């Protein structure tokens, strides 16, 4: 990774800078962080974000290479361009971090999230929930006479939209995995 591709004119802040930190445009970036799956590595990453005041919109982690004990952490974060560059540079210097990829700038990528929705209701509402689930290609993974659990996969926006639709139809509980993302094409990142 290169920490140096910073847009010209993106000024930066010291801890004692009293300017409005939102003066620059806030961007949303998806980062893929490849790490050794060792004890405490997630705490290091999260501690970096909390300690330096960065945002986490979503974070997912799982071991992706069991023989090599390598995990992939996918982080969706927001910040000004210079803050995003700092986040990548700071992640890059954590000792068990192998690679940091900014999927938002390194070419096209796909992002998916899985959500589970428990919706309770009877009569017309129940039918409507099932019909909307069909439109969103959500699967029913649990059912009683008065409830469904839907499983839906898609972009975070699609899942947000589904949640909005389910709310008036008896939405009881939601569980979301957070974003997993890969670059498109035949190269590995």
């Amino acid at each position, binding site marked *: 990774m290169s920490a*140096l591709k910073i847009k010209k004119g993106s000024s*930066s*802040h*010291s801890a004692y800078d*009293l300017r409005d930190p939102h003066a620059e445009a806030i961007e949303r970036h998806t980062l893929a962080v490849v790490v*050794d799956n060792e004890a405490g590595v997630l705490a290091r990453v999260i*501690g970096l974000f909390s300690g330096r005041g960065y945002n986490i919109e979503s974070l997912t982690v799982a071991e992706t290479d069991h023989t090599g004990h390598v995990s992939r952490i996918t982080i969706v974060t927001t910040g000004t361009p210079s803050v995003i560059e*700092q986040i990548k540079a700071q992640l890059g*210097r954590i*000792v068990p971090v192998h690679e940091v990829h900014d999927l938002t700038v390194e070419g096209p990528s796909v992002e998916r999230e899985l959500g589970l929705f428990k919706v309770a209701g009877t009569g017309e509402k129940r039918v409507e929930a099932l019909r909307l689930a069909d439109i969103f290609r959500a699967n029913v993974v649990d059912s009683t006479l008065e409830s469904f659990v839907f499983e839906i996969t898609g972009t975070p926006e699609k899942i947000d939209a589904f949640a909005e639709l389910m709310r008036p139809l008896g939405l009881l509980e939601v569980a979301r995995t957070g974003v997993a993302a890969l670059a498109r094409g035949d190269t590995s990142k």
Partner: protein
Amino acid sequence: MSKTQMTGARMVVEALKDQGVEVVFGYPGGAVLPIYDEIFQQNHIKHVLVRHEQGAVHAAEGYARSTGKVGVCLVTSGPGATNAVTGLTDALMDSIPIVVLTGQVPTFMIGNDAFQEADTVGITRPCTKHNWLVKETDRLADTIHQAFHVAMKGRPGPVLVDIPKDVQFASGTYVSPKQARTSHYQPQVKGDIETITKLVAAMETAKRPVFYTGGGVINSGIAATQLLRELVEATGFPVTSTLMGLGAYPANGKHWLGMLGMHGLYEANLAMHDCDLMINIGARFDDRITGRVQDFSPRSKKAHVDIDPSSINKVIHVDMPIVGDVAHVLEDMLRIWKSRGRKTNAEGIRKWWTQIEEWRAVDCLKFEQNGKIIKPQYALSRLEALTKDHADRYICTEVGQHQMWAAQYMGFNEPNRWMTSGGLGTMGYGFPASIGVQMAHPGALVINVAGEASWLMNMQEMGTAMQFRLPVKQFILNNERLGMVRQWQELLHGERYSHSWSESLPDFVKLAEAFGAKGIRCDDPDNLDEAIKEMLAYDGPVIFDCMVEKHENCFPMIPSGEAHNKMLLGEASTKDAIGSKGAVMV
């Protein structure tokens, strides 16, 4: 002896030996007893018993800063580990390579709130470069070797290895440093040639260039220092340095501007403000350096050489970022500059020096020693005059006014001779650091320039100095005040001196005598030289109680929240100098 079975405790000693460790600073306790038992049964590693674990870490820092080697500490679990936290943070802020080994309760008791249990790796995660909890004896030697590798490689820093007691007792296979897995942490040392060439081209035409050097030059090693000196002499550019970088370029060198920053020299700060090409070598645009970032050197092109990519564009946007080790980058810079014909803008640089000489004529460090009260500046000028020709002199400091005066009035002509807590500003650093320095350099003159308040924070280490016969000189500028706090209260808080003096200070001469050391008090400028000579002549630890002017302020000073050219030169310029915005900053 490539592969051998041994206990974990034995492995610790074996691994330290294989890493070339000669001195360990530590304090025993329940969870490290097996390791102490091994230390007892060998003669390769010398153990220095400190009086508090914070002292152990600062001593290791002093050892590391003055040698360029890794400093090593050994402390017990729980309170031993938590007492080490300040030292770890200090070393992290100043990029000092140290390895701290902590004992831990046995693995099967971790999480049970056992006696002297603390989540050491959890507590020290944000204040170490990396840390490890070793759960199997087979992994112990490998982990310790990795720890040394990580502490030294790239931007140096503190690391910690937490070793549960059952892991120390159990047997496992020892691996040597060569067999250890260190391959994956290999930071980039060579800078980007294209950017270096761009920088060289900018150096060829610059009219008002300045080298702004930092602790990275010293951390990079002696080769970096030599290359810097060669480059400065060859180009004729002026050079200034941060507090951490003093000694990389000699203070008696003819291109030396003096230290820059909040209490830096007038000519250095104005050169930074007015330059057209700033070449930052191993410094990090700390807020003590930049002042108000919007007004920091507004008309210059900036290059930044740093081994840590996260330092670049963190505070100040630069035009030529170069990630790499200082020595490697300087070598390439020199090579490329020579091969392009050793060009500089001679006419421009001559004018630039004329301007700098005008600033220098202000003589921002002038002071008047009159009357019967010793001025702190005078005390340090005399200490400098009487010790600068010593063949082997090391200066440590605590934190505060005395630290800044020491940086201003003492000259450093070699690297690794100046040990001070820069980033964290740890009061209580200097005394234990001086112990670490003296352990590394037994015959040297080691002086800790201190304030009485800082010094009291780790005064228990007098016991260490006495036990190990370390003739460290504690030169205390005693103003019976927390001088820097008092100064800020005077300038910022309406002269309301809230808790910035201590009553009931000890009699430092009697205190020295209570430990079996020598105490000297001096409160008369006419006797100062004799008293300093008496301190230097004494073969053993000395506490020098130098009673100084109580309300002296440290100048020059850039008020926080202001630009470099808004510098205060003396008492007359202080009225309402700091606005409410500046008061928010520290």
